């Protein structure tokens, strides 16, 4: 990697089910890195952490425009794949699952081509976590937003809708 240039730090506080990071993808870079660290839930029920994109109008894209392929690597059980098309988010791009502290997660996402209005936007991701008292897992995945449009930001969202998270950070960099 030639180098990273810092763009944005989002510190999660309070209790929330979504976090929007807007206007972080521009014409300055073709490739971006997103790191997340220490995202833990407010309550004791674990939850997956997904990702959506934000369009040039500032709207979160929630239509069925996301394809992904995930390898779920479970330390306690056989590995499994989750491969779907036409979904409303990138499943588990931020975390296979996270839980109340001290259980938590860490992960990285690479975003390719978000500023192009004529090409799809692709991502690759990997994360590591512990949840449910005894479950340690890893996840490696790929994804594509299969509509050619300019992407300017992203949303972190928990998959359940009623299992909010309350701590952690998100870091965004341009890849020089």
């Amino acid at each position, binding site marked *: *990697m*030639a*180098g*990273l*240039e*810092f763009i944005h*730090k989002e510190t999660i506080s309070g209790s929330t089910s979504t976090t929007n990071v807007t206007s972080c993808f521009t014409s300055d870079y073709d490739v971006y890195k997103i*790191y997340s*660290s*220490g995202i*833990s839930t407010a309550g004791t029920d674990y939850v997956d952490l997904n990702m959506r994109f934000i369009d040039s109008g500032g709207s979160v894209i929630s239509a069925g425009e996301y394809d992904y392929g995930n*390898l779920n*690597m*479970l*330390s*306690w059980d*056989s*590995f499994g794949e989750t491969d779907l098309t036409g979904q409303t988010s990138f499943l588990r791009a931020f975390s296979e699952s996270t839980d109340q*502290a*001290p*259980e*938590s*997660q*860490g*992960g*990285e996402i690479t975003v390719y081509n978000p500023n192009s209005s004529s090409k799809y936007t692709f991502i690759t991701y*990997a*994360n*590591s*976590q*512990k949840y449910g008292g*005894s479950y*340690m*897992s*890893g*996840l*490696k995945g790929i994804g594509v937003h299969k509509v050619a449009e300019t992407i300017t930001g992203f949303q972190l969202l928990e998959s359940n809708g009623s299992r909010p998270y309350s701590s952690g*950070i998100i*870091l965004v*960099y341009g890849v*020089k």
Partner: protein
Amino acid sequence: MSPLGAARAVITSGVADVKGSLILLQTQTASSSLLDFEALEQSTYNVHFFTFTDINVTTQTEFGYRLSDDGGTSYETSYAFANQRGYASGTFAERKSEDQATARLGGDITTDSNSVFNGYMYLYNAGDSAKYTFSTSQCTFMQGTTYTMEFGSQAYTTASTINGIRFGEGVSMGAFTSGTISCYGVSEE
């Protein structure tokens, strides 16, 4: 990047190598030794990046790490990991454990000079005393004549402030023949 951060990189590594927000904290080269990094500046960086270059081992074995929360006086011996290993010959396999004395990054590496292990790893949450510490990794190496890759995730599931990391070969964390490891902090400004 802060001027202070850059200055610390010079002090700890002897090499002023700042690539934007990747701040080189230390580079070390092994010579029949373990490699310990105890200048993580974990209160500054939530994410660390490590690179592994031409790691050569003493016997056919895996390569991994242990963490310290007392500045390197002792290193912890309980880790969970879930890795996927793949051979170019076509066989893929799960490598996993809920409790191993080292956090596995990849194996089995063989000993000949062409079997060197190369790769990278991210470490998350080292400075957070209230949460567990995690890593994700990807590496490539030779196992005899078979080209091999391994990627995955590792976790130290005790909440404590991590201020040291030791790299070595095998589950017993032995010295390895040669190789270079660099530790970077991912700057948040």
